[in-house]
């Protein structure tokens, strides 16, 4: 897809935003803001990488299947 590069950017951005934000929200309740926000940022980054690589794997599979179908006909 043409927007692969921008999907990666927006996934990283939203991963960081969401889980750092959740860490901060949690810290309002139980304290330890720096620790929870850092953990949240790392978790968010990790999760966005899972999404990105999963998406690329699925896309790669789809493209190679498409090419196989084209070459067989």
């Amino acid at each position, binding site marked *: *897809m*043409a*927007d692969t590069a*921008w*999907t990666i*950017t*927006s*996934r990283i*951005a*939203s*991963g960081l*935003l*969401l*889980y750092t934000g959740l860490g901060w929200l949690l810290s309002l309740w139980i304290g330890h803001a720096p620790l929870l926000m850092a953990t949240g940022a790392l978790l*968010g980054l990790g*999760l*966005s990488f*899972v*999404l990105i690589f*999963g*998406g*690329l*794997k*699925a*896309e790669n*599979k*789809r493209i190679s299947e498409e090419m196989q179908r084209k070459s067989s006909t």
Partner: protein
Amino acid sequence: MSAEVVIASGGLDCHLMSGCGFPAPGAEIFQFDAVVTFSIGSLEFHISKVTIVIAIMAVVVMAFFTYAFRKPKLVPRGAQNVGELGYTFIRDGIARETMGKDGDKFVPFLFTLFFFIWMLNFAGIVPFLQIPATSTFAIPVAFAIIVYLTWVPLGIYRQGFVGFFKNMMFPPGVPKAMYVLLAPLEFLSNILVRPATHAIRLFANMFAGHLLIATFSIAAFYLISASVVGILGSAASFVVAIALTAFEALIQGLQAYIFTLLTAVYISGALRAEH
């Protein structure tokens, strides 16, 4: 370099040897005072240079394509040839490339979007206009909102309310157990971050490009003085400003293309579930 840039950056007397530092341009070169102010009811309208540029470019786009297709001939010549080239480019290069035959319905939308944005960008290197209207953040935001209000309702209409959000939030290729953590992330990425980056990308490119041209134009002007460094520096800055203008001409078309292409990709994703 336009007169207001010179004045905004320290006046006509500001040169290398006159003791004032380099008047680097800032955000003020994107801010224009209202030329006309009027109000209809409780709504106040401030007509500034950017508003005028947008109006001029809207008229230019409309006038050109009305002229090009006023008496269409089977064998196109002149303006009609250019118009058809543009139409074919949008239809084959963007719409059909991303959506296949379904894309034909969206060609008018993409066509308008591409040429209007291109012309708004192009205003950045037109003498006397010299401001890309898209470097005012409100303008790309308005375009991004129009696009957003196109593909979200379209996706809900085509895939159903549940289906649209299900396809959006549960992408294939990741372990099922992780969806609890990944679904909100993907939701945020598609619903909030996507339109934001769509607008920021166009805005930031045009903003940075205009700022670069202004910096080197001001440098060429500022460095003029009776010294070797001054003359050489001024000449070099002038050449760079010209080269950057040519480069900007390329970037303007490219950014309009990217904006339109991404619009097509978003619409295509709304038409059918991805992958």
